[in-house]
């Protein structure tokens, strides 16, 4: 039995310890906001938050995250940085097809939680692991900057 703490709820799962967290979330807990894109940590669509760190759930065995605090796109809006990012995403109409955007928002929220006023270089570094095939990159950059503006300078 593996215990997963997802979005503040505890779940007991009868799965093999090496099962990637992505499939536990999607196929066992039916939290389908976290997306499958590549299975090799190349595209970032599967990004979730683990104790404040963005991780690629497609290459993270459940055993490694057992009993740790996992937050997914379904609950990131309950965090301060997550809510700001979601709002900026809507304000600037970042989204096109939307498939990669769960991962983009998770990476952006983690960035802002750790660094309230990221530079362009910081944004490149934090977001380069997330592919968007629709090419929404420069709106993503603008939205992160807008979300950061609502952070009080020096905070």
């Amino acid at each position: 039995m593996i215990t997963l703490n997802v979005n503040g709820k505890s779940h007991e799962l009868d799965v093999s310890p090496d099962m990637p967290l992505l499939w536990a979330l999607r196929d066992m807990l039916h939290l389908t906001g976290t997306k499958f894109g590549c299975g090799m940590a190349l595209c970032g669509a599967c990004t979730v938050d683990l104790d404040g760190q963005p991780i690629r759930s497609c290459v993270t065995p459940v055993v490694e995250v057992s009993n740790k605090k996992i937050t997914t796109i379904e609950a990131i809006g309950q965090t301060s940085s997550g809510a700001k990012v979601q709002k900026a995403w809507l304000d600037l109409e970042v989204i096109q097809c939307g498939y990669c955007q769960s991962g983009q928002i998770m990476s952006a929220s983690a960035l802002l939680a750790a660094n309230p006023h990221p530079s362009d270089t910081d944004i490149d570094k934090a977001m380069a692991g997330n592919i968007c095939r629709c090419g929404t990159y420069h709106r993503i950059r603008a939205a992160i900057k807008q979300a950061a503006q609502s952070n009080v300078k020096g905070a």
Partner: protein
Amino acid sequence: MSMGLERWLNSTEAGAESTAEGGVPRRTFLKLSAAAGGGLLLSFILPRIIWNSEATGATTAEVFAPNAFIRIGRDSRVTLIMPYVEMGQGTDTSIPMLIAEELEVDLRQVTLEAAPPDDRQYANPIFQFQVTGASASVRAAWEPLRRAGATARTMLVSAAAQTWNVDMTSCRAEKGEVVHVPSGRRLTYGSLVETVATLPMPDHVALKDPKDFTLIGTSAKRLDAPDKVNGKAQFGIDVKVPGMKIATVAACPVFGGKLANVDDSKAKAIKGVHQVVRLDNAVAVIADHMWAAEQGLAALDIQWDEGPNATVSSADIVQQLESASLGPGVIAYEDGDVAKAMAGAVKKVEAVYQMPFLAYATMEPMNCTVHVRKDGCEVWVGSQVLARAQATAAEVTGLPLDKVQVHNQSLGGGFGRRLEVDVIAQAVQIAKQVNGPVKVVWTREEDIQHDKYRPYYYDRIAAGLDEQGMPIAWSHRISGSSVIARWFPPAFKNGLDPDAVGGEAEEFPYKLPNRLVEYVRQEPPGIPTGFWRGVGPTHNVFVVESFIDELAAVTKKDPLAYRRDLLSKSPRAKAVLELAAEKAGWGQPLPEGQGRGLSVQFVFGSYVAQVAEVEVAKSGEVRVTRVVCAVDCGMVVNPDTVRAQMEGGIMFGLTAALFNEITLKDGRVEQSNFDDYRMLRINEAPAVEVYLVKSAEAPGGIGEPGTTALAPALTNAIFAATGKRIRKLPVNRVELHSA
């Protein structure tokens, strides 16, 4: 799809649009009736820009075959049932805007319902033709949707006037109500629907003057966005049906190969694996979850019968294309006497251009959920061709069409990949052997290696110049596989693929007295090719705009001035070109190793010009710092959507031009995931500026032109920076190495 193909399709169908123009009363194409469950139902026809009747009879004036419906409920809610699907291009917002504008309702009052191909109330043969593609949705819907809205609005006003016993002209519609202006009395649309149903349909209705538009032309917020920031939006891959199993699949890595034998004993021992399904050319593992299915697949010992394509390589394919391109082609366009003009030219310039196979790599990997029962079949999928999906499931199961239900889902990227039904056919074949519903999910590797690929094109192009260096003869021979011949055979006539020559036939923007365009069909053995974003024009615009740049260079003229001189017959093309050049600061000096390049085009009914700015390092690394894009797509429905499509289209084109090619070795695709088929990332994305030209012309398409214009702007900029002409994509860094 290209304009050439559209024109062909439109000219051969006795379609609603052309018949209506021929004098048949409009109401033949608009019908009003009571809606099931109360309210009013307005049925009408959206013309098919790209899709023709499939062998059976086309729509005629005698047969009213609507494919779109507007329902106004007693609660005043407006529901639009339409055949287009959202795949990121903003259709779910722009199409309702058209109806809301004329109907005088708030955009939020309009609810969208996907057209269900099986629904009895709306069942209709025309669903056979549901296609979302070709940058065509707004173009097709522009007139009929506004007309339907205006008709409903006129009748609602008329019903209110009748109720109050006042003159119609003293009433007006606003925000879902009719107001009697002198008295201030109001009636909601919902309270009028019963009366409207008893009124005759007006012969003529007045469409709003564009200057009175309050919604069209504004950047209305995307209606699909809120659910896409919180994980709620459901894509095909997210479907959950009670009792559903998950499957993943491996098809023979060689195209055209078959499954010879498979030992599944190890796979079946894996916890969570239920079943191994054998198809003619593939094996699927059915499991409780994707992890077990993937592990099961890896544990299979499979023997393939690789068939006749087992030794095919990219080199063979290119060699075959090169040979084929020497022979004469089918004439796609001919004007003047090219041979004579060429013979009389002061100078002749010739070049060969090549473009690789490309994969779509939609972010949502291919997937399809199917439940086959004895008496019916249900399919859950994100598709650009719903009716074809339904027909495919019916064919594979042997069930009648009305026993197949297709539930369309949001598309995690389309780009043309979801115009294909290969995944649906495969999933239904698998589901036939499974008890209960099954969701078939392809891995990324399966997705890249079993795609439909953008054709490899091999083009020979030549021009004869006069004393001033201006072209007086032009000959372009395009060689490649035909997507049309596979996807829509009736449109492949006399050896000509009208899409493959798109952008280089009638749409050619330049004034040039003698021009010949030929097409040679050469199919690569076994490799299926498809409609990749920008389709034919993606390749033709690259060749034409690169070659025009070559001619300017040979003549030692500024590429902007050279083009401008050739654009006298196309003021809209000239205007976007000048706008893009001005905004980009064309002519202003740049440091060494940097350059600007431009392109201009008329495709999908829209004019687009782009200026790319690049920096080429001594190592050959190319960095695109800025792209300026000017667009004249006629009347703009939603300016922000147009900008977004240009921005995204530019990144899509840039990814391909810089990085992408699908190659074959031993009959297999060599690339497999985002490590060897890589995508542009945020740190590589240039700044993009989009400028819209105000226009009163009918709307043009916007989904694809952003992509088609990019590659030549990029490579022309590389030429400006380095003096090296790129005639083969993707850009080869080794060739640009100058240290």
